[in-house]
């Protein structure tokens, strides 16, 4: 009996070590990150510079690889009416989010800034209406829509709603493309 137990224990501990990496993926952080920070203080615009804007970041996205945060982002995406304009990634009144075109940049901080500060062509500024923590969750979800740096296994499951798009797990990652000029600049 002792030998099997030893082998069992060995196998068990190996498996534990192997799956420890999963902890972060499934951790559920309920309080804010940081708990109470002023919106807008996290990402700041830089002064005039050639090329696409690269905001200065004082805080990194905390939720890029967290399944719970992505799913919370998905919930908030519906709750805060993001889906009203962007549908479920395909766009409508707003641009699509599941494609490879990122008008204002695809980095987490770009997207954070877009949500918090708004964009001139109609994207409202949600800073102050949505807490930083929730914005980061939205960022994580939005990026997961086009599978940017988001591991497959943390992407949100489908909604228990109408099947409006292919299961997200099946999406092929798309490479971000940045348009250097926002359409506003091209308009007469």
């Amino acid at each position, binding site marked *: 009996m002792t030998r099997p137990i030893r082998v069992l224990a060995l196998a068990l501990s190996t498996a534990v070590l192997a799956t420890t990496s999963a902890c972060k993926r499934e951790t*559920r952080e*309920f*309080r*804010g990150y940081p*708990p*109470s*920070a*002023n*919106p807008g203080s996290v990402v700041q615009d830089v002064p005039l510079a050639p090329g696409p804007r690269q905001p200065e970041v004082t805080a990194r996205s905390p939720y890029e690889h967290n399944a719970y945060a992505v799913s919370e982002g998905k*919930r908030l995406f519906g*709750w*805060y009416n993001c889906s009203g304009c962007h549908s479920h990634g395909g766009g409508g009144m707003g641009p699509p989010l599941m494609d490879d075109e990122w008008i204002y940049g695809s980095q987490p901080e770009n997207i954070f800034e877009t949500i918090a500060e708004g964009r001139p062509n109609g994207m409202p500024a949600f800073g*102050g*209406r*949505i*807490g930083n*923590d*929730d914005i980061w969750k939205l960022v994580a979800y939005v990026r997961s829509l086009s599978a940017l740096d988001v591991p497959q296994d943390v992407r949100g499951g489908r909604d*228990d709603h109408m099947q409006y798009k292919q299961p997200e797990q099946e999406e092929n990652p798309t490479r971000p493309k940045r348009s250097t000029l926002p359409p506003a600049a091209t308009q007469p």
Partner: protein
Amino acid sequence: MTLPLRARRWAAAAALLPLAACDQRVQSALDPAGPQAERIRRLMVMSIWIAAPIAVAVTAAVVWAALRGRDSAHVPETPRADRRMAATVAGLVAATVVVLFVWMISDFSAIRSLSKLDGRPLAVTLVGHQWWWEVQYHDSVASHQLTTANEIHIPVGRPVLVTLESRDVIHSFWVPRLHGKRDLIPGYTNRIWLRADKPGAFRGQCAEFCGQQHANMALWVIAEPQARFDAWYRAQLQPAAAPADSTRIAGQKAFLGNSCVMCHTIRGTPTGGRNGPDLTHLGGRRTLAAGTLPNTPGHLGGWVVDPQGIKPGTTMPPNNLRPDELRALIAYLEGLK
């Protein structure tokens, strides 16, 4: 060998002792306030009266059987003894069948008495959300319909037909002092009849595991005399009164200028969030956060700022308010009677 019996008795006594001392029976199935709960309680009492003697008899038989033959010489297996024993066992089996049959018939009669109540019912729709309850009162005139949350006011003596729906996962509506539970299942519309025969506040709680805050998903059914109910209803139909003093005006400003408006509605202001409970008459409710906290300014303040400390995993985000905004907001919300 009397110990097991004693142990069991001791356990029962130990269990009953705190029960007797406890005067908190807002959610006890043993203290019915409506006809159905009363009917079920009678059935329960009857069941216990059937079951307890059986349990005692079996325990006694087991103990006696174990002790009696211990020192005796080997009882030879004789066909006669076996036949006698077989007859006894057969008789007991027959008795069991009879008891079970009677029991079952009484169940059936109880079932029949639960299904419907007489009288024109008050129609209420209860929508389960993770983790709160949306309460809708129906009226043929659309503008007399009412949406509130986490509290169902009902008139004493009048049947209430509660329609149960869910928007997310399965919940279960259970107010033990009025009736048994009934699930709220997405995709299904369930109904349950209630009637409170005496005024009072009866606590209910979600009884089907529904996720992180299943434990803190409670509601109150408040039974009032018809006149008081009518007055309550009329008051609820009114939009929230405009804030009068400067603090409350500032509080309303804080409400409208922060993330509150993303999810909540206060009728009379340009808000229409339906992700969270309607707050139009928040100040008049008994509890906050679906029965989690008493509705006092202190609890409200803590809840607004740090809901995740009180209900970890709840859908309400932490709010980042300036201290003066917080104080004003508390004053404003508490003033929404």
